């Protein structure tokens, strides 16, 4: 009898994400084992524990998922797990902290598609702002957008130091070129968005970050993407189902279009689903992170 497939779900936070649990189950894993409060130091031991109890044939039915809320920590855990493998005792590992890698990959790819279709531009021609830029999805969006060539600013709503520290840290580690920014008030937001081409909104669910008044300030705006699915949405006038619909409230940016949370969520879902599934179907172990997510997102959207 074929062994049941097992996904060991490692999470440094107090709880695994119910979102990821649903996704892993739906992608076809038979058994999910949550491990919460996992420390980076424990990843080596947990990985080796997981690989040595099954034959090389059996371990094809075994994989590790790395969750959490922290981009860098998830990447560290992914690499610690990869280093702990002892070929041929080796299994696939997929890092997607808070689903941030797949959400960010879907967001950036959906926006890139609209840029190309509606404005005949590419990310590398554009200035991008990320509101809620210092949270998990914001950082991942920033790294992906910057590596794709956009001049990318991650914006914190409390402190410029936080944003700059994060930008420098990620630039050093992932060879991207993030800029740190800050905007607390509507006036500060309006000033920032004046010259930008792209707005990514990755702020907390249920909070409106940009209202119509602020949007008026934008004169070059081409595409906005908002991952918030809980009303009020992050950008006034956007609808969850928008996928290239005109952002009419941006009065001074003719032709600006919007991508809402459900359109992004649809691609994100396909991405996470297929990456988890690949761990079950692959012949040799895979180590998947935000780069794989963005490549796959581009493929899904024919970019």
């Amino acid at each position, binding site marked *: 009898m074929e062994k049941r497939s097992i996904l060991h779900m490692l999470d440094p936070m107090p709880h695994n994400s119910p979102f990821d649990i*649903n996704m892993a*189950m739906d992608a076809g894993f038979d058994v999910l084992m949550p491990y919460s409060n996992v420390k980076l130091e424990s990843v080596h031991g947990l990985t080796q524990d997981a690989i040595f109890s099954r034959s090389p044939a059996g371990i094809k039915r075994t994989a590790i998922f790395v969750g959490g809320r922290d981009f860098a920590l998830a990447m560290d855990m992914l690499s610690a797990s990869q280093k702990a493998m002892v070929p041929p005792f080796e299994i696939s590992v997929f890092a997607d902290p808070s689903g941030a890698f797949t959400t960010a990959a879907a967001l950036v790819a959906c926006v890139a598609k609209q840029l190309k279709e509606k404005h005949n531009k590419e990310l590398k021609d554009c200035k991008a702002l990320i509101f809620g830029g210092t949270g998990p999805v914001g950082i991942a969006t920033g790294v992906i957008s910057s590596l794709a060539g956009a001049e990318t600013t991650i914006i914190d709503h409390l402190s410029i130091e936080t944003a700059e520290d994060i930008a420098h840290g990620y630039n050093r580690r992932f060879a991207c070129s993030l800029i740190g920014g800050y905007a607390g008030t509507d006036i500060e937001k309006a000033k920032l968005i004046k010259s930008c081409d792209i707005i990514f909104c990755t702020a907390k669910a249920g909070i409106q970050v940009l209202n119509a008044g602020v949007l008026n300030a934008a004169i070059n705006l081409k595409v906005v993407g908002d991952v918030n699915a809980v009303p009020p949405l992050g950008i006034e006038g956007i609808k969850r189902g928008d996928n290239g619909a005109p952002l009419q409230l941006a009065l001074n940016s003719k032709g600006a279009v919007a991508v809402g949370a459900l359109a992004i969520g649809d691609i994100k879902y396909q991405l996470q689903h297929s990456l988890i599934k690949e761990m079950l179907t692959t012949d040799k172990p895979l180590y998947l992170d935000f780069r794989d997510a963005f490549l796959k997102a581009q493929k899904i959207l024919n970019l």
Partner: protein
Amino acid sequence: MEKPFILHMLTTAKNLSPFDVNMAMDAGWVSAVPYINVEPSEVQGLVQDAIFSRSSKNLKRTGIFIGGRDTKQAMDMLKMAKRAMVPPFEVSVFADPSGAFTTAAGMVAAVERELLKNFNTTLTGKNVLALGGTGPVGQAAAVIAAQAGANVRIIGRQLEKAQHVADVCNDEFGDGKIKILAGADADKAEYIKTTDVVFATGAAGIELLSAELIATAAQLKVAADVNAVPPAGIAGVDAFHDGTKIENSVSGAVGIGALAIGNVKYQAQNRLLKKMIESDKPVYLHFEHAFEVAREYVKSKTQS
């Protein structure tokens, strides 16, 4: 392909109750995922995480169970979970802290059955004494009985604590529509004289009602005890009793023990866990629903 049934099981305690995990699996949930040490403030985030990863069709195959030990906290978490839904992204939630809601429902439904069978009457207007009634099972049983029309008094060792619990029951669980009273354990000899029904829901191994007091209970009809560990909470009522005459009773009262209550409790919890799966639209289940299904079960057994 149909998506597997996933029950996200939240508890504020440091472990889930293995009882609840077994129950969930046996009711048809394929995967039961534990979330321990959950803070009430985390409920909204966990719920919204759970609802957005499946289509609204498959959300019918997703549920949330709220355990823990504290009745009010569990009810608060149930309300928070309900508020966190973003229709049509919505899943069913069932709160049963320490299994207290279904245990209480099982006990009250069994009591109702014995009242009807032996005394041809109902809970309406009956005087109920909830001994050791300040814990989770006692609270839920008091509220269910009060909602069914009984005059309930919660008895605790300290009057002050019993009064506080009664207030919480009336205001929080009964929406201000019920009036549960409080009493001190020291005064129960007085109360027992006019009591029709006794619930014993104290800690295991403590006798709450002695044979001497039972002999003074002139209108006692049914006495139910959830304690399965000897000595029994009510003298003369053992775990196997199920409508059995209580020795010493001058009024022909019958006793219901822990195993008989446990049987109805099991059915109630099983049915609610199944209801989450079978219901077409999301349901939010607590002690009231537990009592509905416990009653249904008891009725179906009586008829057959």
